[in-house]
């Protein structure tokens, strides 16, 4: 079932993406953010909260002066480690309580600081790599099953109800569980701490919550003989910190987009670009598959019109991911089934788009989002739209399949909704399992013409962005019809220039050249 598309245009799109990302990468290389530095501390072993529930990594980074910060938190912290001989966690606590202050250790030689920090960094990376091996080993013992991998969300706000729901969903056939975050968490400039039982439209992403669900899923995986993946969101102001926690708690996937926060959460673009780079370096190393957020273009605007924007964004996300050292097999590019169900031949357009992505990104674990925007209170109709989505997904061999809920327009999923939704996907994907293999598209027909058009338009739009520069293009509404100024938006004050001898032990260890090994 191959579409005939112009491979030269595909190659040209990749070149344009590279040209677009190149200058941004230069900018990234010269800067860091408070979130990156907090992540470095977390990776070194700092955890816990201080007064007013403020996380210790925040307290420490907030206490750094501009000078210290520009060299990277690892240096100042490493000096204290070297001097005090404390474990990072213990040191963190003393700094948090005010017992110690990093300015006390300015005089400690940088070399000593680096040495001890490198030691802890290695310990941390070894631990992450152990978790990665654990995943590999479990996947061998409990094969996950064939893609499309059925992915459902839990979102009760209470981590313990979420755990119940996650286990139930796994039993019903879910292969991936996402714990949706509480609304607004992406705008918090810190990560909440401990198990949480009150969220709004979702449950806070905390390391303790990650652990609770990971353990429950490991248990159910063994019981079912099938590995069940766990995912969460590395978006927002704490993107790299969530990537850190996810690496440690062996999450398997993370929502992680190079531009989503900018466009849809008004987070400063520089902050986002820097954060996504560090996050993805870490994700690459942890073996975490990222999911990008192109589906968001489709929920706010017309899906037929936005199709080229989705493809253009996929090329950009791919390029950013490559630059952070991610292999194709970890880049879950996004798309969604959002064409108006009333449109004649809408299904043909969806098939065209999904197959186009499949051919252009053959090794990517494509993420396919379900119908949401056109879902209504008519749950019966909604179930059918989901069925056509399921069919498209199995036909075009999508990888990460977010099961649509018949109650999408009503409430965050009930336990019973999830069971019906999984039943829907399983029925359709089984009854039409090999349908995609058995058909081919009429050359020059409606489906093929549509795919070719989308590719051409994406190329054109990438060309425009390349001409302008990515930051300037975003300001000029190139994406999702929103304008974001380079120095506007949330979190800009957390961006800073690196001193010439800025140092980050994890970047040093994970720099893309060496990440190939992951």
């Amino acid at each position: 079932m191959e579409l005939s598309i112009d491979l030269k245009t595909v190659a040209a799109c990749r070149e344009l993406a590279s040209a677009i990302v190149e200058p941004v990468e230069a900018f990234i290389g010269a800067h860091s953010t408070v979130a990156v530095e907090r992540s470095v501390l977390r990776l070194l072993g700092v955890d816990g909260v201080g007064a007013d529930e403020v996380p210790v990594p925040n307290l420490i980074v907030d206490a750094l002066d501009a000078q210290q910060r520009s060299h990277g938190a690892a240096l100042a912290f490493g000096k204290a480690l070297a001097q005090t001989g404390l474990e990072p966690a213990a040191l963190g606590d003393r700094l948090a309580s005010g017992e110690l202050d990093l300015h006390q250790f300015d005089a400690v030689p940088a070399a000593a600081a680096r040495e001890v920090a490198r030691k802890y960094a290695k310990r941390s990376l070894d631990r992450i790599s152990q978790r990665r091996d654990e995943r590999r080993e479990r996947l061998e013992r409990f094969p996950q099953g064939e893609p499309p991998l059925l992915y459902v969300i839990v979102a009760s706000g209470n981590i313990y109800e979420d755990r119940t729901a996650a286990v139930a969903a796994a039993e019903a056939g879910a292969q991936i569980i996402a714990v949706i975050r509480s609304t607004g968490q992406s705008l918090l400039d810190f990560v909440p701490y401990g198990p949480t039982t009150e969220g709004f439209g979702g449950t806070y992403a905390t390391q303790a919550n990650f652990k609770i669900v990971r353990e429950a899923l490991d248990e159910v995986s063994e019981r079912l003989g099938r590995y069940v993946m766990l995912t969460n969101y590395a978006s927002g102001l704490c993107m790299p910190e969530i990537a850190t926690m996810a690496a440690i708690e062996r999450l398997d996937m993370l929502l992680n987009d190079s531009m989503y926060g900018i466009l849809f959460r008004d987070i400063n673009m520089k902050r986002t670009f820097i954060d996504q780079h560090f996050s993805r370096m870490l994700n690459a190393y942890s073996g975490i598959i990222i999911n990008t957020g192109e589906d968001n273009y489709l929920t706010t605007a017309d899906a037929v019109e936005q199709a080229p924007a989705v493809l253009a964004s996929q090329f950009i996300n791919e390029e950013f991911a490559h630059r952070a050292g991610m292999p194709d097999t970890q880049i879950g590019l996004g798309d969604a089934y959002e064409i108006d169900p009333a449109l004649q031949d809408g299904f043909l357009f969806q098939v065209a788009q999904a197959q186009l992505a499949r051919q252009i990104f053959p090794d990517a674990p494509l993420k396919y989002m379900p119908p949401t925007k056109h879902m209504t209170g008519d749950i019966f109709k909604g179930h059918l739209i989901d069925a056509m989505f399921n069919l498209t997904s199995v036909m075009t061999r999508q990888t990460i399949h977010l099961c649509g809920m018949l109650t999408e327009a009503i409430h965050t999923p009930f336990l019973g909704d999830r069971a019906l939704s999984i039943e829907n996907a399983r029925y359709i994907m089984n009854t039409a399992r090999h349908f995609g293999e058995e058909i081919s598209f009429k050359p020059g027909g409606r489906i093929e013409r549509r795919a070719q058009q989308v590719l051409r338009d994406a190329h054109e739009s990438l060309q425009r962005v390349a001409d302008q520069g990515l930051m300037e293009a975003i300001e000029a509404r190139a994406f999702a019809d929103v304008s974001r100024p380079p120095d506007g938006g949330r979190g800009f004050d957390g961006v800073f220039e690196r001193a010439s001898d800025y140092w980050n032990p994890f970047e040093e260890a994970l720099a893309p050249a060496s990440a190939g090994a992951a």
Partner: protein
Amino acid sequence: MSRIVKPYGDTMNDGKVQLSFTLPIEWSEAADEAARQLAARMGFADAQVVEGRPIATGFSFFVVYGSTPHGIDFSTIAAPSAKTHAMSMDEIDALVAERIGRKIRVAGACIGTDAHTVGIDAILNMKGYKGDYGLERYKSFEVHNLGSQVSVEEFVRFAKEKQMDALLASQVVTQKGSDVKNFTALVELLEAEGLRDRIVLCCGGPRVTNLLATELGYDAGFGRGTVPSEVASFIASRLTKA
């Protein structure tokens, strides 16, 4: 120990229920409101009309979600299953050979005007159902499948003349309570003929429950998804116990 259970949406005891129905009124915002008030009158709290639309002149369709305040004490539910005697075909054949020493005579029929024989055939015919052999395949049963649209009189006459040990009555059509009517007529006639105590009497069909069956005076009732060995086990254990 009492154990109150309520419908579960996403939190224990939230009582969430989905409803849909048609009202014979033209759609309007007032129709939505009528649907909401109706759901409230049915006892649902926080009834939300999530869909309301015209489906024809003078008719509107609604989807409603609400929370019921009702729960049920699960510890008080007495609904013993007829399917608890699980034995394999060989076990049953051996048991019957040993304890009874002859074949059990079974007659089955779709009674009344019902012509849906697929269900009773699934239980009786050699080939069985879902990979489970039918009673004809057992060494321990002599099976008489009387087919469809068998009147209660005919069925009882046959049972009497051929000295059946067990009768299997099927009802698939349930419109206007025809199933209950026919099942009841069968028990009553068997009683009137003085045969009831000598016969293991079972009924089945997609809307049959064991509870309903026993309330109607049957020994057992078998619903959706029954496989033949469950029925064979019941009959054999009933007859060998007696």
